[in-house]
């Protein structure tokens, strides 16, 4: 009895619910017998991995679904030992090098070499290459990415790489140029709504369109989240009602509360409270950019005209710093302080204008 989101995951390119044209392209690509390295990118929750698995299944058949978890041990040049778990079938191996942090370069070098250096024995019935899936490529260190580019060419004969990431902006151009880019865009709200309804139908439930749209909107066009929300709604109250409340994840609520606190009062004391809440969010591993975006979305609702402009600009300023800096809290807090200052000033000016 797994969750709907996993239970109803499509397992072949034909069954994909959206971007069907792209699925067809991929199918053709695979059927031609060979294909270049791929880089699949798009926001999270749009089915990148699902699509990749479908692709592999198309390529190798159902054998690719016999997965196992393996532990690999590596030793860095500085004698540091580390292990990383991979998921592999007989035909492919999936690894997330960024799991080991700064030593991802070693993983890339060693792992791909070991995989790529073994040829398939029986090339007649099987493909002559294996597939290495690297996830979260945008979190790879630059060193690791450089280590990747020569490997990509050298072992072209025995392995194909499929890179998976949210955005290519952090992937070095050298790698981007060696790969065929496959962009998986987020499904539209209608598409999500339809998917939700079809899933409910499979579950033997009927989902009102209004509710489906509502969930889709709340989910931020994230299909995974939409499905999970939908199931949560089902648990909450079965005969769906169109005006039903859609529960949001706790962290989102918390984030919104934080934003409200900021709008409510601007003072050093409040800034301290907000800092504590930001820390809470960060320790729960909510990515800083998500926090920043969530804050901005809420804050901007309370601003108008010029103020909005100014707030968004400063948000952009500090968001950029988030990416280039080290300690997220500094920049988040700086943004909050900046907002407080702007807002307070604006507010006081507004009062002054009244008189």
């Amino acid at each position, binding site marked *: *009895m*797994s*969750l709907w989101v*996993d239970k109803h*995951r499509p397992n072949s390119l034909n069954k994909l619910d959206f971007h069907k044209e792209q699925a067809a392209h991929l199918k053709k690509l695979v059927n031609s017998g060979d294909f270049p390295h791929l880089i699949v990118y798009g926001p*999270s*929750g749009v*089915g990148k*991995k*699902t699509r990749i698995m479908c692709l592999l299944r198309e390529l190798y058949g159902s054998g690719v679904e*016999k*997965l*196992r*978890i393996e*532990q690999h041990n590596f030793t860095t040049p500085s004698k540091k030992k580390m292990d990383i*778990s991979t*998921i592999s079938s007989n035909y492919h191996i999936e690894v*997330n090098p960024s*799991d080991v942090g700064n030593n991802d370069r070693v993983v890339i070098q060693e792992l791909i070499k070991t995989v790529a250096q073994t040829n398939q024995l029986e090339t007649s019935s099987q493909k002559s290459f294996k597939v290495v899936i690297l*996830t*979260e490529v945008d979190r790879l260190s630059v060193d690791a990415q450089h280590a990747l580019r020569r490997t990509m060419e050298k072992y072209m004969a025995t392995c194909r790489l499929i890179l998976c990431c949210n955005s290519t902006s952090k992937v070095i151009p050298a790698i981007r140029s060696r790969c065929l880019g496959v962009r998986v865009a987020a499904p539209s709200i209608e598409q999500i709504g339809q998917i939700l309804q079809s899933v409910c139908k499979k579950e033997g439930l009927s989902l009102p369109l209004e509710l489906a749209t509502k969930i889709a909107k709340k989910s931020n066009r*994230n299909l*995974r*989240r939409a499905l*999970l*929300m939908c*199931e949560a709604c089902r*648990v909450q109250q079965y005969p769906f009602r169109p005006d039903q409340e859609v529960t949001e*994840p*706790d*962290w989102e*609520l*918390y984030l919104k*509360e934080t934003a409200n606190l900021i709008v409510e009062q*601007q*003072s*050093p004391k409040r800034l301290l409270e907000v800092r504590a809440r930001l820390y*809470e969010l*960060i*320790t*729960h*591993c*909510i990515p800083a950019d*998500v926090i920043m975006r969530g804050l901005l979305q809420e804050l901007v609702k309370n601003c108008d005209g010029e103020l909005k402009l100014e707030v968004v600009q400063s948000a952009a300023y500090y968001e950029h710093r988030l990416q*280039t*800096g*080290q*300690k997220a*809290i*500094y*920049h988040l807090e*700086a943004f*909050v*302080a*900046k907002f*407080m*200052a*702007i807002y*307070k000033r604006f507010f*006081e000016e507004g009062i002054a204008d009244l008189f």
Partner: protein
Amino acid sequence: MDIRSFFSSANAKKTNNASNKTVRPEPSKLNVKGKSTNEKTGRRGNDGSKSTEKGRGSDKKGKGSYSRGKTQSKSKAKRVIALDSDDEDVNGNVAVKKDEKQLDEGTKKKRKRQVSSEERNEDTVSSHRKVGKKAHLIESDSDEEPIPRKKAGSGNDKKKTGIVFKEDSDEEPTKKSSMGSFLKTPSPQKVKSKTEIKKTETKTPVNVSDFFGSSSVQRSDRKTAVSKRKLDEDEEIHEDDDFEKTLAQLDDVQKSKKPRLSETSPQKSASTPSPSGNLASKLAAKAKQFSMETSTRKVKEEPKTLVPETPEPKQILKKASPVKLSPKKVLSPQKDVSPKKPSPVKSEKAHAPKVSPGKPSKTSPPKSASTKTSPDVPELASRTSYRSYLTREGPQSLGAKEFPEGGENCLEGLTFVVTGVLESFDRDDVKREVERYGGKVTGSVSKKTNYLVAGRDSGESKLQKARGFGTTILDEDGLIEVIRTKPGKKSKYVIQAEESFSKEKSKTPVQKTKSVSRLADFERRASSSTPSSSSPVKKEGKVSDEPVLMWVDKYKPTGLKQLIGQQGDKSNAKKLLHWLTNWHKNEAAGVKPQGKFFGKDDGAGTKAALLSGPPGIGKTTTATLVCKEAGFSFVELNASDTRSKKSLQHEVAQALGNETLVDYMGPDRSKSRGHKHCLLMDEVDGMAGNEDRGGLQELVSLIKGTKIPVICMCNDRNHQKMRTLSNYCFDLRFQRPRVEQIKAAMMSIAFKEGLKIPPPALNEIILAANHDVRQVIHNISMWTAGNKSITYDQAKDDSKRARKDMKLGPFDVCRKVFVGGDETANMSLIDKSDLFFHDYSFGPLFVQENYINVFPYAARGNASKHLSLLARTAQSISDGDLVDKAIRSRMAWSLLPTQAIYSSVIPGELMRGSFPQMVSFPSWLGQNSSRGKSERILQETRTHMRLKISGDKRSLNMDYLPYMRHSLTRPLVARESEGVPEVIHLMEEYDIIKEDFDNILEISKWPNSDDPFKQLSTKTKSAFTRTYNKEVHMTPYSTGVLTKKKRGGGVSVAGPEEGDEEEEDAASEDSDNDKDDLQKDTMIKQTKKKPAASKEKAKETTGKGKGKGKTSKKRS
């Protein structure tokens, strides 16, 4: 002598104009220094104006006399001033200054003084009465002056020198002219003035007199007051200090050349009651007359003066500044005189300057001062609300007024509180000024507060309190008055030092030589031009007697009583002594060491003592002295000896069982039967590196078996290396001595060395050295190498430089970054960025953590401004983070200064203000590590669930977990035990083990979400656990390997019928199995699992089935 005097006079004349100029600037310079005597001059009123006019050079002669007097004074003065011509100018300045001072001081005695001054003014017309008496008085002055002319008799010379000294002493009281001195000897002064007047009348002015002018008058006064000799002597001492001080100030004064007139004029207005209008011209005239008269007089009067004076020089010699000279101490005058013989000219010079200051004092007795002081109570500041406090403006006319020159230590023992805004002073200035004179500035009013200085918008509560306690309330002018009018007095520390010194002297004849040497020093310094003359004397005194030693060694305590800060019964020295003397007894009795917390801690039974404390506070000295006191001889091993395991074994181990040769061979072997000895292990924390390998361990083992006491010393007893050792030792921790304790000792050293260090300056030095006695001595030694006296400002300056090397903890650094006020007001940019470098990894964190808690002054209570400051600070901190990233990721360490600016300096500047809270420790560290923990948990959980879910750990966290949390707990909450199978099924579906279950609940828990697990009854929970443990859960990963280090790794494997808390069970099982299984953890778990699995019907794969077994089966 004559020639010389003429020469000097000629110089003086030449430089008249210059000197005039220089004289004027005095006040300005003083102002700059903060010691300015503007007000004094102003109060002087007429007198002041007179003096100033003189300065302008209306009387060239008068000036000449001044200058000459100055040069003479020089020779006496300890300070080495520049060469002749310059000196003269200086002296002239000095003289004028002294005059001013005296005037100021005389506030109480104004009237008397006024009389005297008037008399002076009227010199020409003055009556002849009192001539007889006064002539006698005046003689002293005359003595000196005539001497140069006479030259003939060596005896005369001697006498002269003697006289000179005496004169100095006489003058000194006037110079210092602490209020008390005036009070005590008001009559003599009057007498003097009168006598002078008479003389002037009687005798027509002579050229010579010009040179000796005014100065002589004062001296004579003192002499007359034979009965008050003691008092005079006291005063004399003061005067010495003052004189030096003034000299120092004069140096400064010369540099600045502001017109005095501007200052004087307002002052005059302030001081309404002045005796006569156009004083200047009169004064000038007087000066001439005086000088002439004195010169003439001297010749005649010499014999008389000599008799009384002779004892005085001795006293001076013995004690540079004896507080209370007892007549006993009078020694043979010849000895004293002898040093001076070589340079009689100098002696003359010395006289002259002293004389000069005396005169001005007479001339200008300020009455205004007295008037002002009495009405000190300021108009009460208007009631100020907090709001007005926030918005109140800064001082309006900063620098409009200048602090007067006060008597040395005139404020000692007084406590001030400053409230409100003083219009013309910075608060820091006030504080500095008060401290300069030995006073103390505190923050709030208490019973002990002597004065409340209230300015505009002063705090109501403080005023009320002050009224309640009867504290005197002053305004600015009141404060100035207090400083100006309070009599200088000898610091109690100086007094102590002198007393102790005199005691020593009385015991040992050595003192004499010392005094001689000191005298020689005097001379040498004073007459910089002719050092050769004094040098032989000096050699006699010092060089022959004692080898050149560092002061630290020279003044090393020779007995327990001299130890600084170790006098109390509970002091470490006493404890150590007690321990040491009882050591053998306890050893014989077999006393076991007691715990620290039971009974009294006298260290009985411990074989060794560990003295610990910061450097320079006398640990080693204490140890050696205690050994001496207890009659132990000792072997010392310090860091300069190799103290490896081997060498300790060879050398020390034997020594610990040895007896010393002293027992058999020593000079006092008869009484030292069973001579005791001990081992001193100095600097044990220095036992490091290859050289001393194994030394500490060996030391510990030696201590265990030692037959003699061992005393170890170290700086940081909490250091890792000291851990073992400290367990076997009697723990004695040395604290830094208090400032007062050090100060007393330092004053006595200073006294012995003939140094002039005002106690407030010493305060600064001690604080700068962080209470490190050794450092203090070294610093003093260095700073006085060129110049035997240190002024407060010099000391403050020097010690500021020395202070730089102090190490601050991150908390102090953070406070210093933000806190405003005098502490940080004068820090340069470099200083501020140096704060960052105290710890550049911690510093920024502290700043970031605490900047919100600061109330910036710049905001002035304006919330909007405050917020924008916060925003700017936050931005700067964020900038700093970018730099930090660049530094760490690209090894661009050269960017550290940049980071210092962004992360520390700019935030500090923006937010500078009050810091009401404690500095809190950066929470980022804790938060970051808990974030790291969450990451790890997520990663692990994701690895476990990976086969079923897509998405990385972030989406797992944000998307899955909130719903997983509900799915995992809802059945239990809703249906209690019935929901258990459903949950377990879900867990199996996602390959979640119990541990993950807990983790998920933990990590998806938010402050705003309820904890469903809490709603569960324990029954349900135990049912859940039991059911879960009953079954074998196959996971696609090997739990053994993965969770090797982590708690509860064996949960899934735990025995079937365990109770509620599976973790406990696992633990107990572990312990059970430990006995049987010597294999590794993973193996233990496997062996555990086998029985469990077999019991559970061994459904599927056994043993290692946890590995890939399950998946492969499933899939295949």
